[in-house]
């Protein structure tokens, strides 16, 4: 992304004319080959963004060869992650310097944090950086004034800071969750509580949270502080909702969705909103940013719940079954219960007995629970793309690419198999 932006700047200073022609050609080609009507409808946008993005990526790899690449780029996949890869590595370095600790044990706990965060898939920072670009004012409208240029760079730094804070809050919550769940592993490596003990893991989580707060304070925007404070509150509320439930609550779809919002979607939705607030966007725009994050987060979790049953295969029971064996009732079972009310009795008995797990799986297999969960995830993914579509029109190329990448992400979230 950074490279792309740098290039844009170079292009703007010298080759702005040719850049526009190339861009125009890209669109033209797209319309010719696919016979799209001029205003692109949302259903076609996914394809549209693939074409445009991959065209740009080929333009990056060699400006002179774009004509040759255009045809093959049609099949290339848009990768939102590689779009911001360069910027993410800058972020990683900054994060590293933020969690530096003088006490050796804390330092090694912090090192562990990077194994989980920076070397992970970095879903959240990717979304937030793309959102930052997607909400940019059109570059063309910014006068080539030196002072304004710095301020847009400053804005970017502040938005990057939100991405860092989000990642820190996320990892802090993972550290605490692992203690709560008594988990031994996390992303294939021993969890921090397993390696260094519960107490240290909890305190390391607090350490990250406090560093996140310090970073938050440096933004000097009290509205953003409040937003992210709310997130921390939601994360804990979600955990307590999961821990202390009556049978009726456990079997309520509404309760489940509320809990899912608190536990998963609140962080990404509120930090998307923070990105918009920092950019000085209108309330309407920040609501759209929030809606995107919320629905993307919900879709993500719903698919997670499906994968807990299916694993990478399509058949039931191949997943890790972590949730159900911990007695956590998720959407697939809730839907199955609507079809087979007798499943309720099994759920009320609990899943300490593995025979009950098998019984529940049997009901789930007979029902449309998995499919209906997937449908619900799709519905939220579509709501997320709709939020992006309803952002104010902006013809800037970077903005367009990022918006399309955000839409692509919603599709990836619901089609992923791991």
């Amino acid at each position: 992304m950074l490279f792309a932006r740098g290039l844009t700047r170079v292009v703007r200073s010298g080759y702005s004319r040719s850049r526009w022609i190339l861009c125009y050609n890209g669109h033209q080609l797209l319309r010719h080959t696919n016979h799209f009507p001029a205003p692109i409808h949302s259903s076609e946008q996914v394809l549209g963004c693939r074409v445009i993005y991959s065209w740009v990526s080929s333009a990056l790899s060699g400006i002179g060869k774009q004509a040759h690449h255009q045809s093959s780029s049609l099949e290339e996949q848009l990768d939102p992650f590689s779009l911001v890869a360069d910027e993410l590595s800058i972020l990683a370095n900054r994060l590293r310097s933020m969690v530096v600790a003088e006490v050796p044990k804390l330092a090694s706990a912090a090192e562990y944090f990077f194994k989980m965060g920076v070397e992970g898939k970095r879903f959240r920072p990717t979304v937030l950086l793309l959102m930052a670009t997607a909400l940019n004012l059109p570059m063309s409208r910014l006068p080539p004034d030196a002072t304004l240029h710095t301020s847009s760079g400053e804005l970017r730094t502040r938005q990057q800071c939100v991405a860092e804070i989000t990642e820190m809050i996320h990892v802090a919550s993972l550290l605490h969750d692992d203690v709560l769940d008594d988990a031994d592993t996390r992303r294939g490596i021993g969890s921090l509580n397993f390696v260094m003990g519960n107490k240290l893991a909890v305190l390391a989580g607090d350490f990250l949270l406090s560093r996140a707060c310090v970073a938050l304070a440096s933004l000097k925007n009290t509205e953003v502080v409040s937003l992210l404070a709310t997130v921390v509150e939601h994360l804990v509320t979600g955990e307590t909702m999961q821990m202390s439930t009556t049978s009726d609550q456990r079997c309520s779809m509404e309760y489940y969705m509320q809990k899912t919002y608190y536990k998963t979607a609140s962080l990404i939705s509120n930090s998307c909103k923070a990105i918009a607030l920092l950019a000085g966007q209108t309330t309407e725009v920040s609501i759209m940013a929030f809606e995107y994050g919320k629905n993307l987060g919900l879709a993500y979790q719903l698919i997670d719940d499906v994968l807990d049953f299916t694993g990478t295969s399509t058949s039931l029971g191949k997943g890790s079954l972590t949730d159900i064996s911990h007695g956590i009732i998720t959407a697939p079972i809730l839907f199955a219960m609507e079809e087979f009310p007798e499943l309720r009795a099994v759920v009320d008995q609990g899943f300490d007995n593995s025979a009950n797990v098998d019984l529940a799986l049997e009901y789930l297999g007979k029902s449309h629970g998995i499919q209906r969960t997937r449908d619900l995830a799709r519905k939220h993914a579509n709501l997320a793309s709709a939020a992006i579509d309803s952002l104010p029109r902006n013809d800037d190329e970077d903005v367009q690419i990022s918006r399309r990448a955000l839409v692509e992400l919603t599709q990836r979230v619901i089609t992923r198999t791991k």
Partner: protein
Amino acid sequence: MFTKLPSRATQRALAGLRTNLASLSSPQASRAASQLYPTTSERWDAAMLQAESIVGDASSFSSLQKWVSGEFNNITKYLQRLVGTNHPMLETAKRCTYISEGKMGSAQARGLTVMLTSKAVGELMKHSCTSEKQLEEVLKNQMSLAEMTEMTYSAYMIHRGVMDLKMHGLESTTTTTTTTTGGLTEQRADLEVSRQARALHYGNKVSVLCGDFLLAYVMRGLGDLFSSKVVDLVASAITDFMEGEFMLLDDWRSANYLLSREARDLSRWVRRSHSTIGSLQGNTCQASLVLANIQAKLQYDARELGRNLGLAWQAHTELQPFLRERYEPIELPEMPPYPAFDLNCLPVLLFLRGAHDDKARNFRLLLDEIKSPEANANANSSSPQAKTDGRLNLINQHEHQELVNYGRLHELVLADKNAIGETYKLIRSHSTRAIKHLDSFPPSESKEVLVNICESLYQK
């Protein structure tokens, strides 16, 4: 646990918690409570009472009420389930409730100090605030800062009580691997350990969530103060706190702590105490002036005042067990007794330092004496009960992994008049430094009380 100052609702909730716990405790509860923080300084008590009367009741300010009515009730429910598990969370709750009954006023001293510092600049605030309404707003924010100071501290007291189970072979999972070779009693002991471990894991969950709730509440409250500087100050104090806590963990987990260089390193003690006590008190005192828009020089003085008072207070607290002629472990209702002092407390540190530098003394021989076998007797016993106790005691947060005869160590420290004298000297030096930083404050009743509090730490 929570400052008494701002909220009747807090008091109500605490009262509820107290009833819950009291109904589960033995009749000796009040006797045990008096052992927690032996009141040795009547002057301290008097100063604290005076402080409370100055700060007064401001229950209308509290925003804690909403939180308390909802989540706090759940917390007391969780706590009830913990009774009989020996989980530190329960102990923290008991300590908090007993202390808040006013034994040494220590449950609210942190918040009180912040409020007193705020009041000490009251005259100046009349100039720095443009309107009556703004003044009111500042006072309200300072009160809520004092509340958050207490809550932050409580959150950490709770989080540091999280127990390491797996590291000591305590699995909370239901699958018990019972070997056929082990006898029936052996199996029973294993089952008991596993049952206990499940209960303790539940205690961990409650601790993590309670602490997180308090922290989330603090974060929310900080956001409402609309001051990035204040957020920065409090968050930085939390960071420091974690660093200090990790240093403590190092000490506790070392099997050979007493012999290590750290055990007699005074600068390490200062650094650690700054992190765990001084930083929070100093930064929140400064923050109260930031909220009032008071000039930077005085902010610095407020910070140093809080920091030094915190250090003096910490040293004073660590001195308490050594003001008794005889060693007595701390006993709380329904819990096994635990040591009255830590191996890294100031008097022990100064004793070890003196003994190490004393060429006439054989340091290793001395350590052997401290680590006499009678302290280990229980752990080596082969009865199933002892096995269970041994495993569970090993993970008590209040015990170093190094087994020590605390009674003997207590004797040795008392016999070494230098260790106690040096401790007093350190308390005095930080207290007087705190008083010196009060010089630049305008005269006021609050200032007098602050001086009084500082002096009470080293004068009778």
